[in-house]
């Protein structure tokens, strides 16, 4: 079971594109694109409690697909860097893909009897 969340702030227009990209990647990997948990962050206190560093934020099994490093929680558009260095309002689809793949691999490994947990 892979849990996929998309957190967004309505003041930033990037989440529809991020959701579309995310669902495309999920479908490519055989995951149900409709199982994305979509949550709106509406206040600064909510951003703090959710450790929300900007919109959109995508988490797979609770882990951000891009390390937010030490960015503070904020109601803002999030700055991403594509793998070629360009700034973008949405994460590189390859980063989303890799996060989903890692979660799938972990889930598959966990489901196999005799898999080492050490």
């Amino acid at each position, binding site marked *: 079971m892979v849990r996929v969340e998309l957190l967004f702030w309505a*003041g930033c*227009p990037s989440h529809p594109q991020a959701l579309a990209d995310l669902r495309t990647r999920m479908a490519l990997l055989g995951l149900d694109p409709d199982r994305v948990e979509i949550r709106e962050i509406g206040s600064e206190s909510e951003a703090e409690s959710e450790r929300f560093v900007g919109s959109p934020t995508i988490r797979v099994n609770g882990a951000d697909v891009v390390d937010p490093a030490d960015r503070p929680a904020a109601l*803002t*558009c999030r*700055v991403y860097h594509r793998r070629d260095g*360009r700034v*973008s309002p949405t994460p590189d689809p390859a980063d989303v893909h890799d996060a989903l793949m890692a979660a799938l691999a972990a889930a598959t490994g966990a489901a196999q009897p005799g898999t080492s947990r050490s």
Partner: protein
Amino acid sequence: MATIEDAAPAVGRTAPDFSLPDTEGTVHEPGGGAATVVVFTCNHCPYALAWHARIVAVAGDYADRGVRVLAINSNDAARYPDDSLEAMRARVQSGDFEGVPYLSDASQQVAHAYDAKTTPDVFVLDPDRVVRYRGAVDADQDNPSLNAAWLRSALDAVLAGRNPEPAETAPVGCTIKWRR
């Protein structure tokens, strides 16, 4: 301190005049020359950052044709410290604004007067300070090959004495961060 004249602009109407300081304190005003591009932008918004190089390239490519590009940061730096005057100055000193004065609209009066919506939000003014284009730089911040097509098309039209087509597009980006 900004000074403002006139009312909120629309395409075909005279844009508000203003006087704003850049990061070194030199005051700039719109108008004069063959055309002026007024672009509301900032430091923290991914849309503004993604389109930034294309805007600076336009400034370089059109400078010898009498076009000036003025970048204005109107965001509330108290809530968004990345948009402080110090942070603006750091970007200018790093060479990020080659040929483009980066103006501080700390009072937010100019953004209000222009009814600026987003960063970026672009206005192209003719020599009489009439708005000839308002909107986005081009159709996709993630596609550098578009090369600021809407902005360049608008400038080419103004320089040729024609009306831009399109004359208006929807500005796309982060909302202006107004004071509360």
